């Protein structure tokens, strides 16, 4: 037997979909029904509970329904609206599974096996899903979980799993029902018991099946395949096959939109940025939901303030570190709006995401390291700094980021060197720790004896100073000198220096490192004691 990966297909069927996608007023009406045109006649599609109690049933002509329930409110079913709802639901369902399929007119299919570990099992996942459907979407629904997608859908639609009504789930969130079938044999048994007239087959076909004495699906399975094909055609056989073969997956999966754009229209013109912020908050919340469903982060956003009869005012929000943190996004927008004066009254706000990147956990505030707070792995911190250096180099040029190292050398201008970028890479981070310890030990041993006096700023090259009547001047001020140090070195490589270095202070209290070149007897400024 070939080993195939276990699948778990969840069908989510919305039994009163055509009613519940209607506006709030319709949802709250006590007796209501939706109708569709069938054979030139208006036929009931979905009915509310109280209308059903009065005897109205799906498939009944409208005129007959009115006789049973005269005060019933009726709306035509809106399949376009239903489809839009299904797509929004599918987008939301992407957070539970990456394989979501829209099954018009009123159901979704989700593959859950891949997500079970993330949600710590079926129970928590299904409960979360059912709870959100009830509380957030306010939709009644039937959940069926089997290894075969077509079977899940069939059982949900026709076999009458228990309906989770939104109002009941809101009251008791844990009280959720889901028909769960684990194995194919069990599934076959459940399917076999279904009556052929209750599985959504064409009425004409059902008639022909009943005419030869076939009542249930199990009767069909018992017949020889060749005979079935000859009598009822290939289609029925394929359909039967698809009910029990786990390899048959939906032909099309839902692919969410890759661009984000959301707009809010104001009922009246808005003249103050303060009033815009709550609306922007809402739009950002939608954006964050959008990002989470797709496992993405945003790098660049555009916010447009739309005016009446004028081109919109737009501003760009660019993130240095991509984010999907609502507060951070809001903060940046707020900062930009802070000093903004609205040029014209605003009629609508549109927020659109321009560039996205895949979500990386370590990328955001997760690794916040503070002096007082948490400490994270040094390597990941190094990575962040490597990234920062790359970012700086990308904008400012490769030679714009430097690190410095001392060099054992007497000539001051050669006693240091610089390196472009980070001196040590992430890989060697650990190795150099020992070296650093050594260095700090060396420093400590020197602590007793003061080392030679060196300025923290070095000039790129010595700058000649004015010398007159025994005094040295810098910027027209006399410098007073102390602490001479003679440095003579470098005769071996042709860059010999012979200098007397002094600590010099100006009248304004600034301290400099200056030297007298013993060869030329000229004075130079070489450093600043900043």
């Amino acid at each position, binding site marked *: 037997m070939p080993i195939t990966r276990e699948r778990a297909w969840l069908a989510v069927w919305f039994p009163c979909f055509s009613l519940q996608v209607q506006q709030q007023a319709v949802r709250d009406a006590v007796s209501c029904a939706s109708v569709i045109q069938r054979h030139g006649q208006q036929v009931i599609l979905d009915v509310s509970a109280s209308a059903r109690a009065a005897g109205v049933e799906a498939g009944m002509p409208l005129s007959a329904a009115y006789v049973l329930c005269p005060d019933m409110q009726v709306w035509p079913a809106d399949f376009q609206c239903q489809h839009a709802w299904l797509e929004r639901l599918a987008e939301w369902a992407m957070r539970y599974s990456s394989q979501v399929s829209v099954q018009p007119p009123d159901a979704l299919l989700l593959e859950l096996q891949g997500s079970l570990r993330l949600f710590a099992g079926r129970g928590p996942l299904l409960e979360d899903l059912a709870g959100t459907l009830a509380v957030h979407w306010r939709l009644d629904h039937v959940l069926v979980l089997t290894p075969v997608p077509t079977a899940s859908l069939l059982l949900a639609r026709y076999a009458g799993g228990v309906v989770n009504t939104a109002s009941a789930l809101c009251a008791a969130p844990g009280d959720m029902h889901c028909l769960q079938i684990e194995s194919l044999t069990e599934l076959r048994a459940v399917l076999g018991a279904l009556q052929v007239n209750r599985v959504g087959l064409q009425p004409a076909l059902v008639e022909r099946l009943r005419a030869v004495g076939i009542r249930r699906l199990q009767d069909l399975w018992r017949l020889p395949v060749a005979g079935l094909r000859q009598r009822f055609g290939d289609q029925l056989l394929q359909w039967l096959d698809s009910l029990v073969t786990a390899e048959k997956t939906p032909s099309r999966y839902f692919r969410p939109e890759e661009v984000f754009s959301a707009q809010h229209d104001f009922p009246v013109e808005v003249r103050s940025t303060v009033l815009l912020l709550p609306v922007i908050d809402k739009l950002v919340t939608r954006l964050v939901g959008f990002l989470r469903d797709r496992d993405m982060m945003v790098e660049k956003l555009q916010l447009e303030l739309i005016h009446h009869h004028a081109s919109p005012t737009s501003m760009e929000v660019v993130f240095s570190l991509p984010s999907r943190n609502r507060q951070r996004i809001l903060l940046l927008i707020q900062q930009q709006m802070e000093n903004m004066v609205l040029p014209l009254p605003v009629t609508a706000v549109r927020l659109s995401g321009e560039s996205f990147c895949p979500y990386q956990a370590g990328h955001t505030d997760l*690794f916040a390291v503070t002096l007082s707070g948490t400490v994270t792995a040094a390597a990941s911190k190094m990575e962040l700094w490597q990234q920062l250096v790359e970012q700086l180099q990308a904008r400012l040029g490769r030679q714009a980021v430097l690190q410095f190292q001392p060099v054992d050398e007497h000539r001051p201008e050669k006693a240091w060197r610089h390196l472009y970028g980070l001196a040590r890479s992430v890989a060697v981070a650990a190795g150099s720790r020992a070296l650093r310890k050594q260095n700090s030990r060396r420093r400590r041993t020197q602590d007793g004896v003061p080392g030679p006096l060196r300025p923290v700023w070095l000039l790129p090259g010595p700058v000649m100073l004015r010398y007159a009547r025994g005094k040295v001047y810098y910027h027209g001020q006399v410098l007073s000198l102390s602490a001479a140090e003679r440095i003579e070195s470098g005769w071996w490589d042709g860059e010999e220096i012979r200098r007397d270095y002094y600590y010099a202070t100006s009248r304004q209290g600034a301290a400099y490192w200056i030297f007298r070149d013993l060869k030329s007897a000229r004075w130079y400024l070489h450093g600043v004691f900043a």
Partner: protein
Amino acid sequence: MNSKLDELLRRSPLLWRGRDLKARANGLSTGFKELDRILPAGGWPLGAIVEIMFPQPGVGELQLLLPAIADLGQAEQWVVLIDPPFIPYAPALEAAGVNLEFVLAVRAQRAAASSAHGRDRLWSMEQALRTPGCGMVLCWIDAVADKAVRRLQLAAESACSIGVLFTSCLPGPAPLSFSPAALRLWLQAVMPGGGCSDSRCRPVARRLLVQVLKARGSSVFRHVEITV
């Protein structure tokens, strides 16, 4: 009377005295006890912007920060210098205990003269401040817009880093300008009483007058003389 007040202060969490902020705020010690004492955070305020105004390079403006920078290096926190006016001299920094492995210098000022200088500097500073593991970012800049300082302030808060803006000011009376920085210090060199002209002795320790122009969490601004 006083005992009743004390009793109230002790009992009610709603009452507190402005001067007690020292205890609650966390700061990074400056390494100068006298200075720590007058700063409300008990040192450099973490997650905030500090503006240091100094009349000219060489008064000891960097010495003021070196002990803190050395501490940060020991804690493996990064220190970023943005457009330092001269070359940071490695031997002197190492002698002061600075861990050069965690010091990064950024040259944001490009050769081509354009108005984008300040922008690149502030951008670099913001990026660095935001990066977790950042201890302190020092930036030398002529003038900063209030809006930019606020932005930096948020960046510093996000990673609990310290941003230091070195701005030059004219010698003379304290500048009257306003800034949203959490802490503003004004430095002045203190003239030694008698000029030291003996070229054989080590230079006398320099005195630096640090005046607090503004400090978040305190309404009393004091000044202190420290030895750098």
